[in-house]
Protein backbone atom coordinates (compact mmCIF):
# COMPACT_ATOMS: atom_id res chain seq x y z
CA UNK A 1 0.00 0.00 0.00
CA UNK A 2 1.26 3.46 -0.86
CA UNK A 3 2.06 5.48 2.18
CA UNK A 4 1.54 9.25 2.17
CA UNK A 5 3.87 11.20 4.36
CA UNK A 6 2.51 14.15 6.25
CA UNK A 7 5.09 16.89 6.38
CA UNK A 8 5.12 20.08 8.37
CA UNK A 9 6.87 22.81 6.45
CA UNK A 10 7.76 26.13 8.06
CA UNK A 11 8.50 29.05 5.73
CA UNK A 12 10.28 32.09 7.07
CA UNK A 13 10.82 34.31 8.99
CA UNK A 14 13.85 34.83 6.74
CA UNK A 15 12.98 33.54 3.32
CA UNK A 16 14.41 34.44 -0.09
CA UNK A 17 10.95 35.41 -1.35
CA UNK A 18 9.61 37.37 1.62
CA UNK A 19 10.41 41.03 1.99
CA UNK A 20 9.45 41.01 5.63
CA UNK A 21 9.61 38.46 8.43
CA UNK A 22 6.56 36.25 8.86
CA UNK A 23 6.41 32.57 9.58
CA UNK A 24 4.06 30.44 7.54
CA UNK A 25 3.53 26.98 8.98
CA UNK A 26 2.11 24.59 6.42
CA UNK A 27 0.94 21.01 6.92
CA UNK A 28 1.37 19.13 3.67
CA UNK A 29 0.24 15.76 2.44
CA UNK A 30 2.82 14.96 -0.17
CA UNK A 31 3.05 18.31 -1.90
CA UNK A 32 -0.58 19.29 -1.33
CA UNK A 33 -1.16 21.80 1.46
CA UNK A 34 -3.75 20.61 3.96
CA UNK A 35 -3.67 23.47 6.43
CA UNK A 36 -1.64 26.60 7.02
CA UNK A 37 -1.14 29.02 9.83
CA UNK A 38 0.68 32.33 9.96
CA UNK A 39 2.80 33.28 12.95
CA UNK A 40 3.36 36.99 13.42
CA UNK A 41 5.15 38.96 16.11
CA UNK A 42 8.51 39.77 14.56
CA UNK A 43 7.70 43.43 13.87
CA UNK A 44 5.63 44.55 16.86
CA UNK A 45 6.92 47.97 17.86
CA UNK A 46 3.89 49.33 19.68
CA UNK A 47 3.31 52.42 17.56
CA UNK A 48 -0.20 53.04 18.94
CA UNK A 49 1.19 53.02 22.48
CA UNK A 50 3.81 55.62 21.53
CA UNK A 51 1.20 57.77 19.81
CA UNK A 52 -1.05 58.17 22.85
CA UNK A 53 -0.56 61.44 24.71
CA UNK A 54 1.51 63.09 21.99
CA UNK A 55 0.59 66.18 19.96
CA UNK A 56 -0.62 65.65 16.37
CA UNK A 57 2.57 67.22 15.03
CA UNK A 58 4.50 64.19 16.30
CA UNK A 59 1.81 61.59 15.65
CA UNK A 60 1.69 62.69 12.01
CA UNK A 61 5.23 61.41 11.47
CA UNK A 62 4.59 58.27 13.49
CA UNK A 63 1.45 57.52 11.45
CA UNK A 64 3.52 57.75 8.29
CA UNK A 65 5.96 55.21 9.65
CA UNK A 66 3.30 52.59 10.31
CA UNK A 67 4.06 51.42 6.80
CA UNK A 68 6.89 52.62 4.61
CA UNK A 69 5.47 51.27 1.35
CA UNK A 70 2.12 53.04 1.58
CA UNK A 71 3.20 56.00 3.70
CA UNK A 72 1.19 58.66 1.83
CA UNK A 73 -2.18 57.06 2.54
CA UNK A 74 -1.43 56.72 6.27
CA UNK A 75 -0.49 60.39 6.29
CA UNK A 76 -3.62 61.29 4.32
CA UNK A 77 -6.09 59.31 6.44
CA UNK A 78 -4.65 60.60 9.73
CA UNK A 79 -4.64 64.23 8.58
CA UNK A 80 -8.12 64.03 7.04
CA UNK A 81 -9.45 62.51 10.25
CA UNK A 82 -7.92 65.41 12.23
CA UNK A 83 -9.48 67.83 9.75
CA UNK A 84 -12.90 66.21 10.15
CA UNK A 85 -12.58 66.50 13.95
CA UNK A 86 -11.58 70.16 13.82
CA UNK A 87 -13.80 71.08 10.81
CA UNK A 88 -10.89 72.45 8.80
CA UNK A 89 -11.65 72.90 5.13
CA UNK A 90 -9.07 72.17 2.44
CA UNK A 91 -8.46 74.47 -0.56
CA UNK A 92 -9.47 72.71 -3.82
CA UNK A 93 -5.96 72.87 -5.26
CA UNK A 94 -4.56 71.11 -2.19
CA UNK A 95 -7.26 68.43 -2.39
CA UNK A 96 -6.25 67.66 -5.99
CA UNK A 97 -2.53 67.64 -5.10
CA UNK A 98 -3.28 65.13 -2.33
CA UNK A 99 -4.91 62.84 -4.86
CA UNK A 100 -1.87 63.13 -7.15
CA UNK A 101 0.54 62.21 -4.33
CA UNK A 102 -1.69 59.37 -3.17
CA UNK A 103 -2.06 57.89 -6.64
CA UNK A 104 1.68 58.09 -7.31
CA UNK A 105 2.21 56.22 -4.05
CA UNK A 106 -0.36 53.62 -5.04
CA UNK A 107 1.38 53.15 -8.39
CA UNK A 108 4.76 52.48 -6.80
CA UNK A 109 3.24 50.14 -4.22
CA UNK A 110 1.40 48.08 -6.84
CA UNK A 111 4.45 47.93 -9.09
CA UNK A 112 6.55 46.72 -6.16
CA UNK A 113 3.94 44.06 -5.33
CA UNK A 114 3.91 42.86 -8.93
CA UNK A 115 7.71 42.85 -8.97
CA UNK A 116 7.70 40.65 -5.87
CA UNK A 117 5.29 38.24 -7.50
CA UNK A 118 7.31 38.02 -10.73
CA UNK A 119 10.48 37.53 -8.67
CA UNK A 120 8.78 34.75 -6.70
CA UNK A 121 7.67 32.83 -9.79
CA UNK A 122 11.27 33.27 -11.04
CA UNK A 123 10.35 35.53 -13.94
CA UNK A 124 13.18 37.89 -13.12
CA UNK A 125 13.17 39.74 -16.45
CA UNK A 126 9.64 41.06 -16.04
CA UNK A 127 10.35 41.73 -12.37
CA UNK A 128 13.32 43.93 -13.24
CA UNK A 129 11.30 45.76 -15.90
CA UNK A 130 8.66 46.53 -13.29
CA UNK A 131 11.24 47.64 -10.72
CA UNK A 132 12.74 49.98 -13.29
CA UNK A 133 9.28 51.38 -14.03
CA UNK A 134 8.78 51.87 -10.31
CA UNK A 135 11.94 53.99 -10.15
CA UNK A 136 10.38 56.35 -12.70
CA UNK A 137 7.30 56.66 -10.48
CA UNK A 138 9.54 57.27 -7.46
CA UNK A 139 11.24 60.09 -9.38
CA UNK A 140 7.87 61.75 -9.93
CA UNK A 141 6.96 61.29 -6.26
CA UNK A 142 10.29 62.82 -5.26
CA UNK A 143 9.84 65.75 -7.62
CA UNK A 144 6.37 66.44 -6.22
CA UNK A 145 6.98 65.91 -2.50
CA UNK A 146 10.74 66.17 -1.98
CA UNK A 147 11.33 62.66 -0.63
CA UNK A 148 11.18 59.14 -1.95
CA UNK A 149 9.53 57.19 0.81
CA UNK A 150 8.32 58.97 3.94
CA UNK A 151 7.53 62.39 2.54
CA UNK A 152 5.06 63.99 5.05
CA UNK A 153 3.45 65.85 2.17
CA UNK A 154 -0.05 66.26 3.57
CA UNK A 155 -0.61 68.60 6.52
CA UNK A 156 -3.85 69.83 8.13
CA UNK A 157 -5.46 72.44 5.90
CA UNK A 158 -3.49 71.66 2.78
CA UNK A 159 -0.24 70.27 1.44
CA UNK A 160 3.37 71.14 2.10
CA UNK A 161 4.47 72.42 -1.31
CA UNK A 162 2.91 73.39 -4.60
CA UNK A 163 3.54 71.86 -8.01
CA UNK A 164 5.11 74.44 -10.33
CA UNK A 165 3.92 74.71 -13.94
CA UNK A 166 7.04 73.14 -15.49
CA UNK A 167 6.92 70.21 -13.03
CA UNK A 168 3.30 69.54 -14.01
CA UNK A 169 4.41 69.34 -17.63
CA UNK A 170 7.26 66.98 -16.69
CA UNK A 171 4.82 64.81 -14.73
CA UNK A 172 2.47 64.75 -17.71
CA UNK A 173 5.29 63.70 -20.07
CA UNK A 174 6.56 61.00 -17.77
CA UNK A 175 3.04 59.63 -17.23
CA UNK A 176 2.81 59.13 -21.00
CA UNK A 177 6.10 57.22 -20.94
CA UNK A 178 5.08 55.14 -17.91
CA UNK A 179 1.72 54.30 -19.49
CA UNK A 180 3.37 53.02 -22.66
CA UNK A 181 5.79 50.83 -20.72
CA UNK A 182 3.05 49.62 -18.39
CA UNK A 183 0.86 48.53 -21.30
CA UNK A 184 3.77 46.53 -22.70
CA UNK A 185 4.63 44.83 -19.40
CA UNK A 186 0.99 44.10 -18.54
CA UNK A 187 0.68 42.54 -22.00
CA UNK A 188 3.77 40.43 -21.32
CA UNK A 189 2.22 39.22 -18.08
CA UNK A 190 -1.21 38.62 -19.59
CA UNK A 191 0.05 36.61 -22.58
CA UNK A 192 3.07 34.82 -21.12
CA UNK A 193 2.41 31.06 -21.34
CA UNK A 194 4.89 30.22 -18.57
CA UNK A 195 3.43 32.90 -16.32
CA UNK A 196 -0.04 31.48 -16.95
CA UNK A 197 1.17 28.01 -15.90
CA UNK A 198 2.35 29.39 -12.55
CA UNK A 199 -0.58 31.77 -12.00
CA UNK A 200 -3.87 30.74 -13.58
CA UNK A 201 -6.13 28.67 -11.39
CA UNK A 202 -3.69 28.74 -8.45
CA UNK A 203 -4.57 30.22 -5.09
CA UNK A 204 -8.28 30.50 -5.78
CA UNK A 205 -10.25 32.73 -3.41
CA UNK A 206 -13.92 32.51 -4.33
CA UNK A 207 -16.26 35.44 -3.84
CA UNK A 208 -18.01 33.76 -0.89
CA UNK A 209 -14.69 32.95 0.77
CA UNK A 210 -13.48 36.51 0.23
CA UNK A 211 -16.63 37.86 1.85
CA UNK A 212 -16.34 35.41 4.71
CA UNK A 213 -12.70 36.35 5.36
CA UNK A 214 -13.43 40.09 4.91
CA UNK A 215 -10.78 40.36 2.20
CA UNK A 216 -10.16 43.94 1.12
CA UNK A 217 -8.40 45.86 -1.61
CA UNK A 218 -7.06 44.23 -4.78
CA UNK A 219 -7.44 40.79 -3.20
CA UNK A 220 -11.20 41.31 -2.87
CA UNK A 221 -11.50 43.07 -6.22
CA UNK A 222 -9.82 40.10 -7.91
CA UNK A 223 -12.60 37.93 -6.46
CA UNK A 224 -15.35 39.99 -8.06
CA UNK A 225 -16.16 42.32 -5.15
CA UNK A 226 -16.30 45.93 -6.35
CA UNK A 227 -15.62 47.56 -3.00
CA UNK A 228 -13.29 50.54 -3.02
CA UNK A 229 -12.87 53.12 -0.26
CA UNK A 230 -12.13 55.80 -2.83
CA UNK A 231 -15.81 55.79 -3.85
CA UNK A 232 -16.62 57.56 -0.57
CA UNK A 233 -13.95 60.23 -0.90
CA UNK A 234 -15.27 63.64 -2.09
CA UNK A 235 -12.32 64.47 -4.37
CA UNK A 236 -12.40 61.07 -6.07
CA UNK A 237 -16.15 61.46 -6.61
CA UNK A 238 -15.52 64.74 -8.42
CA UNK A 239 -13.04 62.96 -10.66
CA UNK A 240 -15.60 60.33 -11.67
CA UNK A 241 -13.88 57.27 -10.25
CA UNK A 242 -14.92 53.74 -11.26
CA UNK A 243 -13.19 50.81 -9.46
CA UNK A 244 -11.73 47.89 -11.39
CA UNK A 245 -12.57 44.28 -10.64
CA UNK A 246 -12.09 40.82 -12.06
CA UNK A 247 -13.88 37.53 -11.59
CA UNK A 248 -11.06 34.99 -12.08
CA UNK A 249 -10.27 34.80 -8.32
CA UNK A 250 -6.72 33.40 -8.78
CA UNK A 251 -3.15 34.72 -8.54
CA UNK A 252 -3.29 35.90 -12.13
CA UNK A 253 -6.38 38.02 -11.42
CA UNK A 254 -4.79 39.65 -8.37
CA UNK A 255 -1.74 40.72 -10.34
CA UNK A 256 -3.82 41.90 -13.30
CA UNK A 257 -6.09 43.92 -10.98
CA UNK A 258 -2.97 45.71 -9.75
CA UNK A 259 -1.84 46.41 -13.31
CA UNK A 260 -5.32 47.78 -14.10
CA UNK A 261 -5.24 49.93 -10.98
CA UNK A 262 -1.89 51.45 -11.96
CA UNK A 263 -3.44 52.38 -15.33
CA UNK A 264 -6.46 53.78 -13.46
CA UNK A 265 -4.15 55.84 -11.22
CA UNK A 266 -2.45 57.29 -14.31
CA UNK A 267 -5.85 58.33 -15.67
CA UNK A 268 -6.82 59.88 -12.32
CA UNK A 269 -3.57 61.89 -12.12
CA UNK A 270 -4.14 63.12 -15.71
CA UNK A 271 -7.65 64.24 -14.78
CA UNK A 272 -6.28 66.01 -11.69
CA UNK A 273 -3.59 67.81 -13.67
CA UNK A 274 -6.13 68.79 -16.31
CA UNK A 275 -8.63 70.17 -13.79
CA UNK A 276 -6.09 71.51 -11.26
CA UNK A 277 -7.73 74.66 -9.82
CA UNK A 278 -5.71 77.82 -9.20
CA UNK A 279 -5.40 79.21 -5.69
CA UNK A 280 -3.67 78.68 -2.36
CA UNK A 281 -2.45 75.30 -1.14
CA UNK A 282 -2.87 75.95 2.57
CA UNK A 283 -6.03 77.12 4.30
CA UNK A 284 -4.83 77.02 7.89
CA UNK A 285 -6.80 75.97 10.95
CA UNK A 286 -6.51 74.74 14.51
CA UNK A 287 -6.77 71.09 15.60
CA UNK A 288 -9.45 70.68 18.27
CA UNK A 289 -10.97 68.06 20.53
CA UNK A 290 -13.14 65.32 19.10
CA UNK A 291 -13.56 61.71 18.23
CA UNK A 292 -13.87 60.11 14.80
CA UNK A 293 -13.61 56.92 12.83
CA UNK A 294 -12.27 57.64 9.36
CA UNK A 295 -11.40 55.32 6.48
CA UNK A 296 -9.42 55.57 3.28
CA UNK A 297 -8.35 53.19 0.57
CA UNK A 298 -4.72 52.12 0.96
CA UNK A 299 -2.99 50.23 -1.88
CA UNK A 300 -3.78 47.00 0.00
CA UNK A 301 -7.36 47.81 0.99
CA UNK A 302 -9.42 49.72 3.48
CA UNK A 303 -7.47 51.57 6.17
CA UNK A 304 -9.33 52.87 9.23
CA UNK A 305 -8.19 55.24 11.94
CA UNK A 306 -10.10 55.75 15.15
CA UNK A 307 -8.88 58.96 16.77
CA UNK A 308 -9.80 60.79 19.97
CA UNK A 309 -8.07 64.10 20.58
CA UNK A 310 -8.19 66.73 23.32
CA UNK A 311 -8.57 70.52 23.03
CA UNK A 312 -4.83 71.12 22.47
CA UNK A 313 -4.71 68.73 19.53
CA UNK A 314 -3.09 65.92 21.52
CA UNK A 315 -4.02 62.35 20.69
CA UNK A 316 -5.76 60.76 23.67
CA UNK A 317 -6.67 57.48 22.04
CA UNK A 318 -5.87 56.01 18.65
CA UNK A 319 -6.59 52.70 16.98
CA UNK A 320 -5.44 51.74 13.53
CA UNK A 321 -6.99 49.00 11.44
CA UNK A 322 -4.79 48.07 8.53
CA UNK A 323 -5.88 46.04 5.50
CA UNK A 324 -3.20 43.35 5.41
CA UNK A 325 -4.42 41.31 8.38
CA UNK A 326 -7.66 40.34 6.61
CA UNK A 327 -5.81 39.47 3.44
CA UNK A 328 -3.26 37.36 5.33
CA UNK A 329 -6.09 35.45 7.02
CA UNK A 330 -7.86 34.95 3.69
CA UNK A 331 -4.55 33.75 2.28
CA UNK A 332 -3.92 31.21 5.04
CA UNK A 333 -7.41 29.80 5.32
CA UNK A 334 -8.56 29.78 1.72
CA UNK A 335 -5.98 30.58 -0.94
CA UNK A 336 -3.12 28.34 0.17
CA UNK A 337 -5.27 25.32 1.03
CA UNK A 338 -5.13 22.80 -1.78
CA UNK A 339 -2.35 24.32 -3.91
CA UNK A 340 -0.50 21.58 -5.73
CA UNK A 341 3.08 22.32 -4.78
CA UNK A 342 5.16 23.96 -2.08
CA UNK A 343 6.54 26.41 -4.65
CA UNK A 344 3.04 27.81 -5.12
CA UNK A 345 2.70 28.60 -1.42
CA UNK A 346 5.17 31.49 -1.53
CA UNK A 347 3.82 32.84 -4.81
CA UNK A 348 0.24 32.71 -3.50
CA UNK A 349 1.25 34.41 -0.26
CA UNK A 350 3.10 37.15 -2.16
CA UNK A 351 0.21 37.62 -4.60
CA UNK A 352 -1.97 38.78 -1.69
CA UNK A 353 0.67 41.50 -1.08
CA UNK A 354 1.00 41.08 2.68
CA UNK A 355 2.53 44.00 4.54
CA UNK A 356 3.75 42.74 7.90
CA UNK A 357 4.90 46.15 9.16
CA UNK A 358 1.34 47.49 8.76
CA UNK A 359 -0.19 44.41 10.29
CA UNK A 360 1.80 44.41 13.51
CA UNK A 361 2.68 48.10 13.86
Amino acid at each position, binding site marked *: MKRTVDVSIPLG*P*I*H*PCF*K*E*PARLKCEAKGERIVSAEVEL*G*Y*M*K*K*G*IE*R*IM*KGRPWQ*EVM*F*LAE*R*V*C*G*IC*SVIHNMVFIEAMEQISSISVPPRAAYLRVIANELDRMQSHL*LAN*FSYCYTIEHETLG*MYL*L*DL*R*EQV*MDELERLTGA*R*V*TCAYIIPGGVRCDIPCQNAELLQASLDRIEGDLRRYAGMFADGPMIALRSRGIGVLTQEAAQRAHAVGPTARASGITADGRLNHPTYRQLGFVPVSRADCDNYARIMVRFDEVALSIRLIRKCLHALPEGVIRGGGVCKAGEIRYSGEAPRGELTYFIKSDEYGRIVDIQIQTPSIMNIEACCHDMIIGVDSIADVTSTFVSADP*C*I*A*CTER
Partner: protein
Amino acid sequence: MTILQGIKNKVRARSIHVAYVDVGSCNGCDIEVLACLAPRYDIEQYGIFVHNTPREADILLVIGAYTPGWEEKLAMVWDKIPPPKAAVAIGNCPMSGCLFDRRGSFVDPPVKKHIPVAAEVPGCPPRPTEILQAILSVRDSVFANWEGEHP
Protein backbone atom coordinates in the same frame (compact mmCIF):
# COMPACT_ATOMS: atom_id res chain seq x y z
CA MET B 1 51.37 40.56 -0.69
CA THR B 2 51.82 37.46 -2.76
CA ILE B 3 50.35 37.08 -6.23
CA LEU B 4 48.01 34.39 -4.94
CA GLN B 5 46.70 36.72 -2.24
CA GLY B 6 46.18 39.41 -4.84
CA ILE B 7 44.07 37.07 -6.96
CA LYS B 8 42.08 35.98 -3.89
CA ASN B 9 41.38 39.57 -2.92
CA LYS B 10 40.28 40.46 -6.42
CA VAL B 11 37.94 37.50 -6.70
CA ARG B 12 36.46 37.98 -3.22
CA ALA B 13 35.78 41.65 -3.83
CA ARG B 14 33.62 40.71 -6.83
CA SER B 15 31.52 38.12 -5.06
CA ILE B 16 29.61 39.48 -2.10
CA HIS B 17 26.41 37.70 -1.10
CA VAL B 18 23.93 39.69 0.90
CA ALA B 19 21.13 38.68 3.25
CA TYR B 20 18.81 41.20 4.82
CA VAL B 21 16.87 40.82 8.02
CA ASP B 22 14.13 43.14 9.16
CA VAL B 23 14.07 43.32 12.96
CA GLY B 24 11.16 45.74 13.25
CA SER B 25 11.23 48.69 10.89
CA CYS B 26 8.51 50.53 8.97
CA ASN B 27 9.38 48.77 5.70
CA GLY B 28 10.77 51.96 4.18
CA CYS B 29 14.36 50.72 4.33
CA ASP B 30 13.37 47.27 3.00
CA ILE B 31 12.02 48.74 -0.17
CA GLU B 32 15.10 50.92 -0.58
CA VAL B 33 17.24 47.77 -0.35
CA LEU B 34 14.98 46.17 -2.96
CA ALA B 35 15.32 49.29 -5.11
CA CYS B 36 19.09 48.61 -5.21
CA LEU B 37 18.23 45.58 -7.36
CA ALA B 38 16.62 47.82 -9.98
CA PRO B 39 18.46 48.25 -13.28
CA ARG B 40 19.05 51.90 -12.42
CA TYR B 41 21.29 51.13 -9.42
CA ASP B 42 22.14 47.60 -10.56
CA ILE B 43 23.74 46.16 -7.43
CA GLU B 44 24.92 43.08 -9.36
CA GLN B 45 27.34 45.03 -11.53
CA TYR B 46 29.56 45.31 -8.42
CA GLY B 47 29.35 41.57 -7.85
CA ILE B 48 26.87 41.90 -4.98
CA PHE B 49 24.09 39.33 -4.99
CA VAL B 50 21.01 39.60 -2.82
CA HIS B 51 19.98 36.03 -2.02
CA ASN B 52 18.58 36.47 1.46
CA THR B 53 19.80 33.15 2.82
CA PRO B 54 22.11 33.55 5.85
CA ARG B 55 24.04 30.32 5.19
CA GLU B 56 25.54 31.61 1.97
CA ALA B 57 25.75 35.27 2.93
CA ASP B 58 28.83 37.42 3.52
CA ILE B 59 27.10 40.63 4.55
CA LEU B 60 24.00 40.90 6.72
CA LEU B 61 21.95 44.04 6.27
CA VAL B 62 20.11 44.73 9.53
CA ILE B 63 17.03 46.90 9.22
CA GLY B 64 14.84 48.01 12.08
CA ALA B 65 14.87 48.77 15.77
CA TYR B 66 15.15 45.27 17.33
CA THR B 67 11.78 44.06 18.56
CA PRO B 68 11.37 41.40 21.31
CA GLY B 69 10.45 38.81 18.66
CA TRP B 70 14.07 38.76 17.52
CA GLU B 71 15.71 38.10 20.88
CA GLU B 72 18.06 35.11 20.44
CA LYS B 73 16.87 34.71 16.85
CA LEU B 74 19.04 37.52 15.44
CA ALA B 75 22.11 36.06 17.15
CA MET B 76 21.19 32.66 15.68
CA VAL B 77 20.99 34.17 12.20
CA TRP B 78 24.35 35.87 12.77
CA ASP B 79 25.95 32.57 13.87
CA LYS B 80 24.70 30.81 10.77
CA ILE B 81 26.66 33.13 8.48
CA PRO B 82 30.08 31.62 7.68
CA PRO B 83 33.13 33.87 8.25
CA PRO B 84 34.34 36.28 6.95
CA LYS B 85 31.21 38.24 7.65
CA ALA B 86 30.05 41.75 8.42
CA ALA B 87 26.79 43.37 9.47
CA VAL B 88 25.65 46.71 8.07
CA ALA B 89 22.92 48.65 9.86
CA ILE B 90 20.58 50.34 7.38
CA GLY B 91 18.67 53.43 8.47
CA ASN B 92 18.27 55.30 11.73
CA CYS B 93 16.29 52.52 13.46
CA PRO B 94 19.19 50.08 14.14
CA MET B 95 21.42 52.99 15.17
CA SER B 96 19.18 54.80 17.63
CA GLY B 97 15.63 53.50 17.32
CA CYS B 98 14.65 56.62 15.33
CA LEU B 99 11.18 57.73 16.47
CA PHE B 100 10.20 54.30 17.77
CA ASP B 101 12.51 54.55 20.79
CA ARG B 102 10.00 56.30 23.05
CA ARG B 103 8.22 55.59 26.29
CA GLY B 104 5.80 52.71 25.79
CA SER B 105 7.41 51.08 22.79
CA PHE B 106 8.70 47.52 22.70
CA VAL B 107 11.92 48.11 20.80
CA ASP B 108 15.42 47.72 22.21
CA PRO B 109 17.92 49.63 20.06
CA PRO B 110 20.74 49.92 19.10
CA VAL B 111 21.36 46.67 17.25
CA LYS B 112 25.08 46.78 17.98
CA LYS B 113 24.30 45.72 21.54
CA HIS B 114 23.19 42.37 20.13
CA ILE B 115 25.48 41.65 17.17
CA PRO B 116 28.71 43.35 16.02
CA VAL B 117 27.95 45.99 13.39
CA ALA B 118 30.67 47.02 10.93
CA ALA B 119 28.99 50.00 9.26
CA GLU B 120 25.97 52.20 9.77
CA VAL B 121 24.01 54.11 7.15
CA PRO B 122 21.94 56.95 8.64
CA GLY B 123 18.77 58.16 7.01
CA CYS B 124 15.06 57.59 7.27
CA PRO B 125 15.28 55.84 4.86
CA PRO B 126 18.74 56.16 3.24
CA ARG B 127 18.87 56.38 -0.55
CA PRO B 128 19.74 53.20 -2.49
CA THR B 129 23.05 54.74 -3.59
CA GLU B 130 24.07 55.23 0.05
CA ILE B 131 23.25 51.61 0.88
CA LEU B 132 25.32 50.50 -2.10
CA GLN B 133 28.22 52.71 -1.04
CA ALA B 134 28.16 51.30 2.50
CA ILE B 135 28.32 47.70 1.26
CA LEU B 136 31.19 48.58 -1.06
CA SER B 137 33.09 50.39 1.69
CA VAL B 138 32.80 47.40 4.05
CA ARG B 139 33.97 44.74 1.63
CA ASP B 140 37.63 45.82 1.45
CA SER B 141 38.22 46.11 5.18
CA VAL B 142 36.53 42.80 5.96
CA PHE B 143 37.40 40.53 3.08
CA ALA B 144 40.88 41.65 1.98
CA ASN B 145 43.74 39.38 3.11
CA TRP B 146 41.37 37.11 5.01
CA GLU B 147 43.03 33.75 5.61
CA GLY B 148 40.59 31.80 7.72
CA GLU B 149 40.54 31.09 11.43
CA HIS B 150 43.43 28.85 12.40
CA PRO B 151 42.75 26.53 15.30
